[in-house]
Structures are given as structure tokens and as C-alpha cells.
């Protein structure tokens, strides 16, 4: 009985995964074979990139600040207060920047995408598109996917940068760590490899969020409950996907872009 239930759940999960992968493949085919609607891509970049900046900057800033403070409280006892800059910078680039940006985007952008596409589905607007000879993936998914792929790495960079700035403020201005030591240690232990990891993670998370959200929207059920459930599920699945993928991505990328000098 239990094994049956586990098997059933696994099959459902594989079926879901297959659908998301097929949507991703369809989008890739569309990008290379159908004309790209650049006006829609720009509109989506404004929605995804420009309008997400405040939430990403605030999240990055306060996380960097509190991380710097906590690190200082521990490190100061060992006389290693000046290492705060290095710890904050490496953490912001390799983990906190991409993950926090991914979570914020899964919440803000993923919910909006699935709600918008879900509403279009239940009000026959997607059928309207198809009836007018427009393939919905070309019109709805491709612009969102391109906007996410282009915007997310930049947002990750902003988030990490803001976190480091806030960490500097807390460490140097509030905790009296000498600024030169803070910056020198940070530069010594942070390299281009850390920035590369942040950007690669940001790119992968953007794909997860956009395909999960668009898939939830396309499969929204009829009625207010169905449309309401689509963004909730998109946010939950998107956030979990970011967190789980982050672990495996960290292990995988560490082989190619190892931490440390």
C-alpha cells in the first residue's frame, strides 16, 4: 500500500517534470525557429528586471548587513574581525545573492506570470491566440524566458553588490573594522570565479522559475480557485526548485569553479 502510494507519487512527479522539460524544449525550438517579439521581451524585462530591483536590493542589503554583523560577533572573539569582508563577499556571490534573488523572483515574478497566463487560459484568451494563428509558446513563454535569462544574472549581481556594500557599512562604520583591512581581505579571498558562480546560478534559477511558472499558468484549472491556485503552486514549486537545485549546482559547479584561491 505504502509502496504503491510512493510509486504513484513518483510517477506523478516524473510526469510533471516531463511536461516542464517539454515546455522548455518547445521554448528553445521557438527561440531558434520563430520570430522573436523583441517589444514583448523589453516589456517583460521591465517587469522582471526593472520592477524587481527594489525588492532584490533591499533583500540583498539587509541580508549582507545582518550577515556581516553576525560574522563579526563570532570572528571578533578570535581576533579575526577584518575577515568579515571576505566572508560576506564570498557568501553573497556564491550562495546568498543567487538564492535570495531566485526566491524573490519566484515570489514576485513567478506568481505574476502564472496568474497572468492562468487568467488568459480560463478566459479563452489563449484559445483566442491559437485561433488567430499565434503559437502561445512563441507569444507568451519566449519573451518571458528571454527576459528572465537576461535580467536574473544582473539582479543577482545587484543583490550581491548591495549585500557587500551593506556588509562594509556594518563592518567598517558600525563595528569599527579598519576599511583597508576589510577591503584587502575581501579582494584577497574573492575572485572572478565567485562572480562566475553567481551568474551561472542566476541563469539556471531564471530557467527554473520561468518554466515552472508558465507551466502552472498553462495548466490552471477553470474558475477562481483554479486561477488562484496556479500562482501559489508556482511560488512554492519555484522556491523549492531553487533551493534544491542550488545544493546540487553548488556541488557540481565547485568541481569547475572551486572556492578559495
Amino acid at each position, binding site marked *: 500500500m505504502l509502496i504503491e502510494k510512493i510509486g504513484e507519487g513518483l510517477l506523478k512527479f516524473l510526469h510533471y517534470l516531463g511536461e516542464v522539460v517539454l515546455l522548455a524544449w518547445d521554448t528553445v525550438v521557438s527561440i531558434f525557429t520563430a520570430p522573436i517579439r523583441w517589444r514583448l521581451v523589453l516589456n517583460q524585462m521591465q517587469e522582471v528586471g526593472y520592477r524587481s530591483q527594489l525588492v532584490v536590493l533591499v533583500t540583498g542589503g539587509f541580508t549582507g548587513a545582518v550577515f556581516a554583523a553576525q560574522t563579526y560577533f563570532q570572528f571578533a572573539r578570535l581576533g579575526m574581525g577584518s575577515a568579515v569582508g571576505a566572508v560576506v563577499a564570498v557568501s553573497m556571490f556564491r550562495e546568498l545573492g543567487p538564492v535570495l534573488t531566485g526566491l524573490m523572483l519566484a515570489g514576485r515574478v513567478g506568481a505574476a506570470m502564472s496568474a497572468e497566463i492562468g*487568467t*488568459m487560459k480560463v*478566459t*479563452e*484568451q489563449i*484559445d*483566442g491566440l*491559437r*485561433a*488567430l*494563428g*499565434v*503559437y502561445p509558446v512563441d507569444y507568451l513563454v519566449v519573451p518571458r524566458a528571454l527576459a528572465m535569462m537576461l535580467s536574473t544574472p544582473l539582479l543577482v549581481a545587484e543583490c550581491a553588490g548591495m549585500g557587500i556594500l551593506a556588509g562594509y557599512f556594518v563592518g567598517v562604520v558600525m563595528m569599527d573594522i579598519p576599511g583597508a583591512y576589510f577591503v584587502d581581505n575581501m579582494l584577497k579571498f574573492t575572485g572572478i570565479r565567485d562572480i562566475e558562480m553567481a551568474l551561472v546560478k542566476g541563469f539556471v534559477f531564471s530557467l527554473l522559475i520561468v518554466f515552472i511558472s508558465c507551466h502552472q499558468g498553462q495548466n490552471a484549472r477553470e474558475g477562481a480557485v483554479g486561477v488562484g491556485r496556479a500562482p501559489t503552486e508556482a511560488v512554492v514549486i519555484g522556491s523549492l526548485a531553487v533551493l534544491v537545485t542550488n545544493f546540487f549546482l553548488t556541488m557540481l559547479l565547485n568541481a569547475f569553479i572551486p572556492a578559495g584561491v
Partner: protein
Amino acid sequence: MISIRNLYKTIGPQRILQGVDLEVDAGETVVVVGRSGGGKSVLLKHIIGLMKPTSGDVCVDDESVVGLSERELVRIRKKIGILFQSGALFDSMTVEENLAFPLREAGEKDENIIAGKVAEVLEVVNLAGQQNKMPESLSGGMRKRVGLARAIISYPRCVLYDEPTTGLDPIAADSINHLIRRLQKKFQITSIVVTHDMKSAFHVGDRIAYLHAGKLYFTGTTEDFAASTDPLIRDFVEGRSRETE
């Protein structure tokens, strides 16, 4: 122009269509009538490949649409306009943007030509000057008319109407009926109208097909349908449920 052969559609446990056969010649108007939830809209959606049949075939200009991919269906869909029950207008666009959408998608870049065509079709549907309104500020009848204008702006050879008068007041419904007739006369458009409004069916149809229990129970001229003494047809035409208090 449109040929439906032995069409079956099952959704979950429900057998919606159970062997529908229908031929629609170029230039004629066929009205498909039947009770709500009887599969009329499902039948219509099969014609442009919005739904795939369980079995059977649908041909447009002797080309089967069953088995075509979404990208291949684009070619078929360009020949056919459809008025959805809800209008299916894009709610984030103005009336003008909704109407210009098929033109822009077809590659038209000249804004003067687009504006001219939009004004022209809005005049055809008696909505001149409504270009800048948003769909949410339109009444049900106006929305259907804008939907119809969008369906005909690219001059399709065939238009499918899904419940064009449902939910409208009698005068708005009559206005839509006249509009459908006007379009037939002006553009010689082949039409398939799905409705359960008998007044509308008699007004716009050349032939009537009565869908009952998943099959076409009757197919014939409007006059034959009106004169039929078959109890099932009489009940439907006269709106008798045979229920007692």
C-alpha cells in the same frame, strides 16, 4: 469547404461526440443547435484544431486538420475566424490593439493601413469610434461585436460563431443576427453558428443541424427543421421540457 467525418470525442468518462458527420459548402451558413453542454462548442473547436478528436476526421478544403501540429495548424487557422462565446478579447489591450493584433502578427507594419482597417471593421460591426476603449468597459454585446470584428479583419473565408447571442438582451441579439447576415451577404463568408437560441438559428441559417446525445439527430434546411413534426425537435424548438409542477 468543411467536412466532419465520424467524429468522436471523449473527455474523461464523458462521451461528448459520438459519430458526428457534417458537410459545410463554401458560402453557406449552417447552424448547429442543441442543448447546453451537448458538445456544440466542442464540435466547433475541433474544426480549427483547438481540440483533438478521440477518433474521426475534420477536413478544411480537403486537408485533414487532425494530426497537424500547432505550428502546422497556423496555415488552416488563417482561413478561419472564430467568435468565442466570451469574445476572448485580450484584456490588457484596447479595442484598437485587439483588432490590430491579427494584422500585426501577419506582418503588417504600416500603421496607417492598420488604423484604416480597424476603423473599417468597427464600422461594419456598428462600433465606429470605440478604438480606445478597454474590453472591461464594454457591454457583453459590444464585446461580442469587437470579437467578431477581430475575427473578420483578416478577411477569412469562413467564420465560426460560438453562441453569438447568448447572454445578450433581445435587441442586442437581433443586432448580432443582422450583423451575421450582413457579413454573409457582403463577404460571402462560409459560416458555422453554434447556438441554442432558435430565433437566431432561424434568422441566420441556411441549414440547421440538431446535435442530440452526441450525434446529429437532424440535418436539413431551416424550413424543414421548422416544419418538422418529430417530437424531439418540436420540444427543442418550442422549449418544452415535459416536466410537470
